[in-house]
């Protein structure tokens, strides 16, 4: 909000410079920027519009900060005529229009404003129109009370402040036709709406160069009504913004007095008596300011005298043991609010930094946070880098992972998306990761990335669920088997041994159906999936629900004694039909003599025409080791003979 430095200084006269004021306001009141010349941009906080969104209000702040006196701009004024003119005021809903003041002003001379007035308005970003309208705007800037002047000759009988009828129409001062709804307020006469209350005046009753008689009004409205109304018709005005912040009804009279004084000076009008509707007067607020309570909250000792000085400088008045809050300070309602006044006016720079006294306790982290840290550590070590993607995706990017793998049945739409590309919440991590693969493929031959993030979707009951998921993508030669190796290594690191990876057997747009696996716990709870990506060469993806993973991770590890006896390694090469899957032979080998076979690895694999049609060669390396004794060649030979026989029989294999 723009302010004039010279007007501030006029209302709070002192020896301070503009630079010093800017600094002081920044540190003790509001963010302030010097826009050059006479103009300051001061960000009045949303709870301070009632008292501080004006030069007069800020002058109170400045007076408190410099220990000076604020000047009251309003001299005593008595109306020229005691009678109120012929205009009545009726307020239909006093909850929504809490106070309404209206004054008839006759014999005005409309014309351009004096230069000082024009300049002030311009400094504050308002265009000069004519002396009447300019006075109204000036009062808003100086006092903080929005004002409105009607052309009295365009009004029949009097003013009625009522709710608009649904569909009621009005043309605003700046020629915009507006249709109102029944929640909005209008100022009307018996025939027609004259103004959208608190938001904008109407054209038909507006002040023009021909205007001779005025009805000057000053009102106080329910903030919510004005806020909602301005949003409904998408018309934000200086007045509506102020009213939306809920001003003090006390401000209405100050504004009216100041407006009449200026109209007298500038337009030489004849001022009549003011009509007022103010059924429920704002009650005065009395609060305690206990030095002990305030000091305890702030963490700095304040004496009663210090507190008294500060409150008095802000216009608080002592009443016995309590303090009367200035009527415009709608933000002050409790002891904490007073504590803020005390510390900010005395300055945060004087606040000491005090070591908190904390009972010794163990600082903990959510289990899921710990697991995420572990996963990140693992991937970093495995040469996989981390990316973050947006939680938003396009509709057609939902449901591309194997359907239902995470128990989500429908995607979640955003009611007010930023664009069609970001219309839904992601229900899998694949869209972002696949895009990352393509983008990075331009710069790297091999890409390995992971992401840990939330996915969202509706469950079968229609409730929105969010899950924390790990996604991994690899683009490299042999990506799919590398991915499988990564999953194995990861689970090994987490101490998980009992998991299985059967064929996926689920629909997915992004996977090659024959190269996809499901990742399950030994109790067949689905943890995720992995597989080769369809349409991106040499690439693979995996996604794992890490909240489910957390439930089955075995934290405790037990050390297994190292065998004292040497191991014996033998290789087994077999020729089998291409339809035989390595996994089946491997599983068999591992289960024949689990006590003696410590490890079985695939070390060679090839398919070649020379081997014969439909044949492939597979070589396993088998490590034998006993925990009880040194195995003799003879014993190992015997085991090998059994393995060979079993493989031959089961897979119609030819031993090489």
């Amino acid at each position, binding site marked *: 909000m723009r302010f004039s430095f010279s007007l501030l200084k006029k209302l709070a006269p002192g020896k301070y410079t503009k630079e010093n004021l800017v600094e002081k306001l*920044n540190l003790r009141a509001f963010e302030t920027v010097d826009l050059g010349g006479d103009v300051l941009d001061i960000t009045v906080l*949303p*709870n301070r519009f009632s008292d501080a969104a004006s030069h007069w209000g800020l002058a109170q702040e400045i007076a408190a900060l410099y220990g000076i006196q604020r000047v009251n701009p309003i001299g005593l004024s008595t109306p020229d005529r005691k009678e109120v003119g012929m205009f009545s005021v009726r307020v239909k809903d006093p909850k929504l229009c809490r106070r309404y003041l209206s004054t008839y002003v006759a014999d005005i001379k409309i014309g351009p404003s004096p230069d000082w007035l024009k300049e002030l308005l311009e400094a504050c970003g308002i265009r000069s129109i004519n002396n009447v309208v300019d006075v109204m705007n000036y009062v808003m800037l100086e006092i903080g009370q929005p004002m409105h002047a009607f052309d009295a000759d365009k009004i029949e009988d009097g003013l009625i402040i009522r709710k608009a009828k649904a569909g009621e129409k009005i043309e605003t001062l700046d020629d915009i036709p507006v249709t109102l709804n029944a929640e909005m307020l209008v100022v009307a006469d018996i025939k027609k709406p004259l103004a959208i209350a608190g938001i904008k005046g109407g054209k038909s009753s507006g002040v023009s160069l021909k205007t001779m008689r005025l009805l000057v009004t000053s009102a106080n409205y329910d903030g919510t009504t004005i806020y909602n109304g301005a949003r409904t018709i998408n018309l934000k005005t200086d007045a509506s913004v102020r009213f939306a912040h809920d001003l003090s009804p006390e401000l209405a009279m100050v504004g009216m007095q100041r407006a009449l004084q200026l109209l007298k000076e500038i337009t030489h009008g004849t001022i009549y008596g003011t009509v007022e509707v103010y059924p429920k007067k704002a009650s005065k607020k009395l609060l305690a300011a206990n030095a002990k309570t305030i000091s305890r909250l702030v*963490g700095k000792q304040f004496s009663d005298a210090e507190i008294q000085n500060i409150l008095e400088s802000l216009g608080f008045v002592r009443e016995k043991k309590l303090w009367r809050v200035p009527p415009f300070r709608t933000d002050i309602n409790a002891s904490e609010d007073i*504590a803020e006044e005390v510390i900010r006016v005395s300055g945060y720079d004087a606040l000491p930094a*005090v070591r908190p006294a904390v009972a010794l306790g163990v600082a903990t982290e*959510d289990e899921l946070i710990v697991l995420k840290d572990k996963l*990140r550590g693992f991937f970093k070590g495995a040469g996989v880098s981390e990316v973050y993607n947006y939680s938003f995706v396009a509709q057609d990017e939902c449901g591309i992972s194997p359907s239902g793998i995470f128990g989500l049945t429908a995607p979640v739409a955003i009611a007010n998306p930023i664009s069609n590309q970001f219309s839904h919440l992601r229900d899998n991590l694949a869209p972002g990761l696949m895009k990352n693969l393509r983008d*990075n493929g331009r710069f790297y031959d091999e890409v390995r990335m992971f992401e840990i993030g939330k996915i969202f979707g509706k469950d079968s009951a229609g409730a929105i669920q969010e899950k924390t998921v790990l996604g991994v993508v690899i683009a490299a030669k042999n990506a799919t088997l590398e991915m499988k190796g990564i999953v194995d290594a990861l689970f090994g690191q987490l101490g998980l041994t009992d998991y299985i990876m059967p064929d996926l057997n689920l629909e997915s747009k992004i996977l090659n159906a024959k190269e996809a696996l499901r990742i399950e716990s030994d109790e067949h709870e689905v943890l995720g999936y992995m597989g080769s990506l369809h349409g991106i060469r040499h690439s693979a993806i995996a996604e794992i629900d890490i909240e489910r993973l957390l439930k089955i991770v075995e934290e405790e590890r037990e050390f297994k004694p190292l065998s004292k006896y040497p191991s014996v390694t033998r290789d087994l090469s077999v020729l089998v039909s291409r339809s035989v899957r390595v996994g089946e032979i491997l599983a068999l080998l591992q289960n024949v003599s689990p006590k003696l076979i410590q490890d079985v690895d695939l070390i060679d694999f090839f398919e070649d025409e020379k081997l014969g049609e439909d044949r492939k060669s597979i070589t396993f390396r088998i490590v034998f080791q006993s925990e009880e004794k040194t195995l003799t060649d003879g014993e190992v030979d015997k085991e090998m003979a059994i393995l060979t026989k079993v493989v031959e029989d089961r897979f119609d294999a030819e031993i090489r």
Partner: protein
Amino acid sequence: MNHLDSIRSEAMQAIHNAADVRVLEVLRIKYLGRKGILNQAFEQLKDLSLEEKRTSGPVIQALKRELETLLDQKLQSFAAVAGTQLSLDISMPGKKVAIGHLHPLTILEKQIREIFKAMHFSVVEGPEVETEYYNFDALNIPKNHPARDMWDTFWLNQSEVKSENLKVKNDRLLLRTHTSPVQIRYMQAHQPPFQIIVPGRVFRFEATDSSHETNFHQIEGLMVGKEVSLANFKFVFQEFFKRLFNREIKIRLRPSYFPFVEPGLELDLECVSCGGKGCRICKETGWLEIMGAGMVHPHVFEAAGYNPREWQGFAFGFGLERIAMIKYNIPDIRLFHSGDLRFIKQF
């Protein structure tokens, strides 16, 4: 069998007698090469009976390994004698080791968590889909009031909630605009005194540019006790920034307004780029706006079921991206969600 035995003794003799490296290489090819004697022996297995295959195969394997070892040993002995002749050219570049890179926000978040944990703060998380109640109402942010306009919100179409995560029925759903709702959730489930921080992703409905994003991350904090004061807050953050930037760094507090705290304030950090002299980064002010904070508003304690006359405490929240941009000198907030490894691999 005899055949293999003779190969073995012949080879061992030859290796033993080898005069130089070249001879060794010839021997390696002769015995272990692709078409070497041992591979030929494997080939010949094909013509043998199954029984013979089973016995001979492993013997050939073993012999192969034995000869490999012998050759290596002999080679080493030459090297030892010849001194530098066979040593590595150590000026060659090191072999590249594949190491993954964590996202800068992960690295920073972890560092921040460590600092707070050292000050006895626990770390908790909360849901990203929130109810209007937790995101606004319980935090004393009034409906239909301009104060709520400080948070531009993404709304979801669904209003009815049955999810276990959310536990409130028939409230409008939204994407949390800050991590502050976790304050309420945590207080409802725990008794003070305590101190926590809450890292997490938040959402704002706004146009993106180099300093604004629709998805970003915050760290929320809350410390509640009988005597927890604003002066304690000042201490915690002097300490925090000293550790985060590894040096003494000035902070200053300014009055501000957030409906869920009173007094409310903003914390500025001395510009790390110019040291407070004024530069482009701090817009010539010498200070960087870092976070909002204040003493928990009594209404917030009431919403959480605490007696505000019994407890007091401070709350704060700051943007992780903002700190990362300052700390790592990153010019554009959109890089964080770009998935660009050229960016990630710098960390």
